[in-house]
């Protein structure tokens, strides 16, 4: 009897499994029935949808619109503004607004709202950096003048990122009930589950094709399963899941500056004002830093760890207008790396690891333990470098622990922004130890000077010139050719699955953060017949 029961159980289990095995995908996606889209691109913003505290840094703010924006070629174009003028001395920026823009509640967007937005953002002292903004003048109902305390070329990028909020509807819970002049308005946000938005009838720009968007915030596995059942139109997946075939969806792999690299502590070991340990006796030697950069085989990492879904990185700004193209090096050149080390007095010890005056070329590389991509990169980096002759011990830790160690030990970090200000934050000596910026305490007077000149340049071209000089001026710089305070490894591609009949058009090089940036041009998405 017992045996019979067991057999029955087996049959039942198999029958159940069998049922699940055959999903019946609805081949006609929701996209073409009611002009609705379901997106599972993750990245639910914890702080809500308030641009003055950081919403919309990556991609479009969706509910709000900005004064200027970037097109897919990274050229600056107008959005809410119709014109902007920078004064000769670079201190005054006059912006003229379009007069036909309204918020989703029907009120028109005026100079007062712009002034209110910038003042609120300045007061909140969040990720939006407006320290140089002195005051804002109202020149008319649709004209404002921003007065800066010193010329700041990067202000151009602030104008592109800060969504305008309405003065009359900005309440305590604005982050949860955003009202703005963007292409969509919020219908419902169930935290941790989904966000439903619908078309803003008052939007002044290109009318988006899709009436309603639903953003699902589920785990990656769950989203993938739902996508396979034909319920999702746009899905973002991590690179590790990029080998999927999903019926009715095409894979889109977007190039990015979402980079990963090893940050190397720059100074000799010492302590900072807060008593934290700073610097590392091994990585403070420029020969070690350069040897690491030359010995590593970036191509092998792209192929091996990223399955080819990425590009090699030589800087944090590859392929951006302010990135220098001269700084690419020939890597995977162990002979050259060995030469650099021998010239600097390092010799191979008995265990094949380099030594110099009793100091072993050994370091501990930290990575955030929850991040499988960074873990894989760290393990492979360590493996390749150990083979070459520099000992790298990997250690996974929480971000809290890493904050304790990051000034004195190499860390696997990631950056990548559409704002050149990031270069300043990463390499300028005044940013030493501020948040995660310049955590390796890099300092080079000449580079500081170039960075200051870049930020205070009055035109974009001039600024880009200085950004490039800071990387390498033929003599010194912060790139691998110069001081090499980083070993930049790879730029991760961002992988999306998109329903076959949806055309998302040209995308710009994607920034750090996988998900929201794809919504940047959502107003231009089309359904193909």
């Amino acid at each position: 009897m017992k045996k019979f029961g067991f057999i029955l159980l087996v049959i039942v289990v198999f029958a159940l499994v069998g049922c699940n095995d055959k999903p019946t995908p609805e081949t006609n996606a929701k996209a073409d029935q009611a002009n609705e889209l379901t997106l599972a691109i993750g990245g639910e913003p914890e702080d809500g949808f308030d641009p003055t505290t950081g919403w919309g840094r990556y991609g479009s703010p969706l509910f709000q619109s900005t004064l200027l924006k970037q097109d897919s070629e990274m050229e600056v174009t107008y959005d809410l503004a119709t014109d902007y003028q920078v004064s000769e001395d670079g201190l005054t920026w006059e912006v003229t607004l379009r007069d036909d823009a309204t918020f989703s509640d029907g009120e028109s967007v005026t100079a007062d709202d712009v002034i209110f937005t910038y003042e609120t953002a300045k007061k909140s002292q969040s990720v939006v950096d407006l320290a140089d903004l002195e005051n804002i003048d109202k020149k008319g109902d649709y004209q404002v003048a921003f007065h800066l305390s010193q010329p700041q070329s990067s202000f151009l990028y602030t104008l592109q990122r800060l969504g305008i909020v309405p003065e009359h509807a900005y309440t305590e819970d604005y982050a949860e009930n955003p009202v703005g002049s963007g292409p969509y308005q919020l219908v419902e946000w169930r935290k941790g589950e989904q966000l439903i938005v619908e078309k803003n009838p008052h939007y002044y720009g290109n009318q988006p094709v899709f009436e309603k968007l639903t953003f699902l915030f589920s785990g990656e596995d769950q989203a993938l399963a739902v996508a396979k059942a034909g319920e999702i139109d746009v899905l973002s997946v991590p690179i590790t899941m990029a080998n999927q075939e999903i019926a009715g969806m095409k894979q889109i792999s977007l190039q990015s500056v979402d980079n990963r690299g090893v940050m190397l502590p720059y100074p000799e070991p010492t302590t900072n004002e807060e008593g934290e340990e700073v610097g590392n006796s091994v990585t403070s030697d420029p020969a070690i830093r350069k040897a690491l950069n030359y010995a590593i085989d970036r191509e092998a990492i792209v192929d091996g760890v990223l399955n080819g879904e990425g590009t090699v990185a030589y800087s944090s700004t590859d392929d951006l207008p302010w990135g220098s193209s001269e700084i690419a090096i020939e890597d995977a050149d162990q002979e050259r790396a060995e030469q650099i080390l021998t010239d600097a007095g390092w010799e191979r010890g008995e265990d094949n690891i380099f030594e110099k005056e009793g100091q072993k070329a050994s370091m501990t590389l930290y990575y955030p333990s929850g991040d499988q991509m960074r873990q894989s990169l760290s393990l492979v980096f360590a493996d390749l470098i150990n083979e070459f002759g520099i000992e790298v011990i990997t250690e996974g830790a929480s971000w809290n622990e890493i904050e304790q160690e990051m000034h004195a030990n190499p860390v696997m970090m990631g950056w990548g922004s559409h704002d050149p200000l990031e270069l300043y934050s990463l390499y300028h000596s005044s940013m030493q130890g501020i948040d995660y910026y310049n955590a390796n305490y890099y300092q080079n007077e000449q580079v500081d000077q170039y960075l200051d000149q870049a930020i205070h340049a009055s035109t974009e071209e001039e600024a880009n010139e200085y950004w490039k000089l800071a990387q390498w001026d033929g003599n010194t710089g912060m790139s691998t050719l110069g001081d090499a305070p980083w070993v930049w490894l790879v730029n991760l591609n961002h992988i999306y699955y998109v329903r076959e009949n949806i055309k998302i058009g040209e995308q710009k090089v994607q920034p750090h953060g996988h998900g929201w940036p794809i919504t940047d041009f959502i107003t231009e998405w089309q359904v193909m017949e």
Partner: protein
Amino acid sequence: MKKNMMIPLFLFLTCYVLSFLIKDTISLELTNKNQAPSLSHLFGTDWLGRDMLLRTLKGIQLSITLGVVTALLSTSLGLLLSLLAIVHPYLDRMLSWLIDLFLSLPHLVTLILISFVLGGGFKGVVIGLMLTHWPAITRVLRAELLQLQTMPYIQISKQQGKGFWWRARHHFLPHLFPQLMVGFTLIFPHAILHEASITFLGFGLAAEQPAIGIILSESMQYLSSGMWWLAFFPGVTLLLMMLLFQRFANAFKHHLERDRSYEHYFNG
């Protein structure tokens, strides 16, 4: 009888010793990644081309070491506390209360709390496991000791002026030895499974350590892309090892508890 005991033990120890032959860092072969199980890689390879058989054996080694250490510590703690219990009725009441308290809490919850407070890692897990696995054995030992205390020969020994620790060493310990052994063998697999589960949940060993729990939680991300072997073989191996040990423990228990009164007839 002997065979029942020796074969599982032998297999178990072989695996353990084998795992010591593997060097600490398992080499990465990026050209060989994501391989399904084959003859050259019996358990397949992971997303960095590491051989899963080697990783699993390494994980088993860590698990067993951890299991032995915690089982020893918990048993010793249990013995110590149960001895204290018979010193004074007041202590006994306190101990009973403590045992009830710990037994009324789910193991895993207490374990996560303790391990988390201690910052995880090997130390955190060992202390957490020790502090959660002592009550069951302590209760058994305490009952045994209370009964022993009333035995005539103990009473006589006491009347003759033998001190508490003398009695503990010469009367209690030999009597408790089978209980201790059984308790040890029962705690051991329990501890290992608990270690694997809290590590899997992310409160246990660091991601660096080659533990089975780590391997299982890592593989979760790859299950949906069809790489079933990453979770299947390590899980089955862990289960098999536990079953082997359980077999041994059972046989050992029977061996210890066998009725010796007839033995001399057979052995002559």
